[in-house]
């Protein structure tokens, strides 16, 4: 019961977080120094008072700020997100998000998976062999890997893949499954077929590796120290004393405990992924929600920026809740000691 109560408590606490985040977004956009209505109009139209007033009315800016705030929050709450202004002019925002979001999620899914599958085992390996040459190589690699800027790594990776024939002796683009181009959006409409799935995966693979690079380094590092910590616990000694084999010691007693500090790391990577998606989607020309956000911001569709920010906030809060659920699964102590 306590675990359920713990999760219920976390859900309750995430409500004010979403509220605070969206309120700040609203304040930045509508109370900020920029008049969103002006930004929506072209050079010529700004001179036209009628067009300006029309834009203001449509944005609801002719109302008192408080009224506008409640309307805005209300429409977010009911997912009544309206139409876009500049970007994909006049299209339904809901549809737009449904169109763009899956590509980002697909990218995020693979980058988390790759980071976890490479970073965690490598970290545990280094931790179990601490202060050996392989530990140093792995640790050093992780640190440098983590320090590389995403966008730069992406560019470099694209260059390498583009001339993979010359470097590795095979052509990445035609390897296994022929890709139409190195960059671009994955085709998610054929995921249910094996070939479609593989093609979509191969398409985002380089981007996912780049996006997951920082996370991979972090997970490795934390995994290493976690293993080092757990190795010195009394209960590990006691398990050894009672005759548990080294293999069982590692997999049963050390592994699961070392995972506990990794949980927040893996989920906080999700923050990075969502933020980093803007850069990586730009470099790899993937039409994801990050790129959409960036375009909306640079082209001045501020209402869309606000709406997308709301979607991001929901994503992040959702990931946070996922983290709490993971915690309760891995660590039976959660919920008893309080948050």
């Amino acid at each position, binding site marked *: 019961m306590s675990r359920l109560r713990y999760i219920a408590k976390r859900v309750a606490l995430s409500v004010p977080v979403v509220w605070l985040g969206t309120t700040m977004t609203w304040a930045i956009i509508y109370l900020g120094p920029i008049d969103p209505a002006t930004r929506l109009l072209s050079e010529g139209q700004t001179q036209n008072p009628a067009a300006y007033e029309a834009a203001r009315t449509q944005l609801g800016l002719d109302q008192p700020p408080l009224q506008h705030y409640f309307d805005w929050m209300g429409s977010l709450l009911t997912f009544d997100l309206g139409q876009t202004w500049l970007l994909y002019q006049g299209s339904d925002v809901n549809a737009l998000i449904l169109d763009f979001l899956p590509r980002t999620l697909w990218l995020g899914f693979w980058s988390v998976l790759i980071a976890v599958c490479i970073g965690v085992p490598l970290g545990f390996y280094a931790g179990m062999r601490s202060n050996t040459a392989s530990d140093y190589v792995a640790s050093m690699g992780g640190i440098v890997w983590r320090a590389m800027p995403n966008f730069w790594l992406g560019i470099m990776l694209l260059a390498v893949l583009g001339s993979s024939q010359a470097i590795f002796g095979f052509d990445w683009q035609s390897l296994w499954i022929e890709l139409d181009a190195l960059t671009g959006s994955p085709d998610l409409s054929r995921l249910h077929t094996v070939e479609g799935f593989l093609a979509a995966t191969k398409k985002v693979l380089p981007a996912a590796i780049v996006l997951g690079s920082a996370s991979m380094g972090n997970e490795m590092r934390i995994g290493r120290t976690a293993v080092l910590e757990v190795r010195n616990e009394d*209960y590990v000694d*006691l*398990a050894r004393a*009672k005759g548990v084999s080294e293999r069982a010691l590692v997999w049963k007693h050390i592994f699961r405990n070392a995972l506990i500090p990794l949980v927040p790391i893996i989920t906080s990577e999700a923050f990075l992924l969502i933020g980093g998606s803007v850069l990586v989607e730009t470099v790899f020309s993937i039409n994801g929600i990050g790129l959409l956000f960036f375009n909306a911001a640079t082209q001045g569709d501020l209402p869309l920026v606000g709406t997308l920010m709301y979607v991001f906030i929901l994503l992040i809060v959702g990931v946070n809740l996922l983290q709490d659920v993971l915690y309760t699964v891995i660590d039976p102590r959660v919920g008893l000691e309080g948050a």
Partner: protein
Amino acid sequence: MSDEPLLSVRDLEVVFHTERERIHAVDGVTFEIREGQTVGLVGESGSGKSVTARSILGLVDEPGRIEGGEILYRGEDLTEDNWADHRGDIAIVFQDPTNSLNPVYTIGNQIEEALRIHQDLRGRAATDRAIELLEDVGIPDAPRRVDEYPHQLSGGMAQRAVIAMALACDPDLLVCDEPTTALDVTIQAQILDLLAELQAEQDLAILFITHDMGVIEDATDWVNVIYAGEVVERAPTEALFDHPAHPYTRALLESIPGRTDPDERLPTIEGEVPTPTGPATDCRFAPRCPEAFEDCRSVAPEHVSLDGDRSAACLLHDPARSDGGERQ
């Protein structure tokens, strides 16, 4: 009781290598335990008693290393290679019960693990046996507790569970490293009772390590007093408390409040316990010893046999060096 001791530790040396120095945490410790016997190892913090306990089970961690001596279990020398074969013959209970149990597995799971290794019990049979063991160590409502996690138990209960886990290995020797220090006095009494009971039932030998002279007096048959990595006195418990032979033992007993008249000042030992950084060249207690004489500062005392199997490493008892001989 057979002639051969169950466990015999001879000239054990454990050295910790730090950046600055080599610390001889255990410096030539020798003692033995016979079947069914409870032997105490008593000393202040930093005397090397816990390191001795860990070395017996091959659990000395870096930067510590066993650098000399032998640990004979039923006459067989325990080394890196064959410790694994004797896992379970010797079980250990640590000071802090909350750290001794893996927090992410149930009590039952951890006991069953030992049962699987040492008694080849699995499934329902293992669970039933685990419940029995928990009942044996006095945990009420064992069928329910077996599915609980360590953090759901109080300190006393957790220590009982640790003991149950040790028993699951079916050991001949139980090493108890300050098993009651983290517990309250009424809980300590429970655990001491429990250990005595188990020993009577299962003919278990116990190595009892503590800093508490009172616990030693209650729980052990035979005592080794350890000071700065060396055993300075060995004696049957009663004899030791009646006539401590080594000045350190004497001073230690006197400084315990409650044994002396409350209106008088407590007798004290001046100075601090030294950290042994090299092989002994003198008596390490000499600087604090009220009875030290010149030789004490230049000769490392050997154990001198006294009446009734007991011995003390003190020049006062060495007829060749001390004119006093047996002092009162």
